[in-house]
């Protein structure tokens, strides 16, 4: 090989090495991006909260349905399971007064979820989220203000 040919071979190798480095970099970034975890638990809790407060648990009288006025008689496990049920998704609903005393609670949890929700941080492939909102609740012909607390446990693959 003459001097020019050797120079060309080194040059081509350099280009190949540079191209491989850039290609590997782009591939690593792309693979990481493709495997990005998108958590939907918070969003699902938001949708659940809207369904509970605006429909399933809303107090109804002759004037119609009153969103964000919770009828405590409707807060039962049967109504919750008929309201929103999804494989791997369980939740509990508590109504509390402003002193954080539980007025009533119900849940849509299976036995495993009921055990896991207490130790959620240590349970693999599960995500938990707790949300508290201001509501009025109707009980024994009396309207009082307090909180609705939704605790969610979600199986994430």
């Amino acid at each position, binding site marked *: 090989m003459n001097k*020019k040919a050797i*120079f*060309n071979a080194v*040059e081509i190798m*350099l280009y190949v090495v*540079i191209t491989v*480095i*850039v290609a590997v*970099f782009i591939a690593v*970034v792309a693979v*990481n*991006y493709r495997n*990005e975890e*998108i*958590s*939907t638990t*918070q*969003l699902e809790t*938001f949708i659940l909260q809207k369904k509970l*407060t605006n429909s399933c648990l809303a107090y109804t009288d002759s004037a119609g349905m009153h*969103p*964000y*006025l919770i009828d405590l008689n409707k807060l039962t496990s049967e109504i919750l399971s008929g309201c929103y049920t999804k494989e791997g998704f369980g939740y509990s609903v508590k109504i509390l007064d*402003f002193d954080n005393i539980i007025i009533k609670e119900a849940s849509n949890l299976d036995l495993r979820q009921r055990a896991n929700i207490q130790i959620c941080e240590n349970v693999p492939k599960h995500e938990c*989220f707790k*949300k*508290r*909102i*201001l*509501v*009025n609740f109707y009980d024994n012909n009396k*309207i*009082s*203000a307090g*909180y609705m607390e939704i605790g969610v446990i979600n199986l994430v693959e």
Partner: protein
Amino acid sequence: MLNKKADAALPLYLGPTLAALVIVLFIFSIIFFVVGIKQNPDLVIKPAAYQDSHNIITILKIQKNNSTIAELISLAAEDKNYKNELSSELVAILQKLPKQKPQEDLAKSRFAVPSEVKGSLQSSEWILEIFIENELFMKVGEKPFGSSEYLGQSVVIPLENKKLAEIKLFLACTLCSEGEINAIA
């Protein structure tokens, strides 16, 4: 094939070009792998973007001394004696509204990590404003210094005197992240 001129030019440009490439890859590595810019903290669908006026509607329906807050606003617009009562009721209610979960601050930690420095500077306050015929009638809550407004809600209610009252509610928060806001939306 390179000509003679290019043969001479290649070593001249190769060093700076390689150096530039290494610098670009280094900067991008920091941005992508250390800072993690690829991990967009924004949710695909943000609850805050879909929130309704539930807090303000609930507040207006809260019953105090056989009248709701909405009725108390109507009374206060007519009779100034009710204004103090309305103000104190609203202050008490706003303190009970859920806020973002505070981050651990420096007072509880021995190490000044960025999240705890941020936690120390973080403060939030619910602000409620009542406008009657576009004039400010009452403002409850003080905006923390340097705060931004989140979760804005407003409703218009008719008053006894045929005027309209617009009630606005928002969370004024310093150094609140979008994730924290979405959690309470």
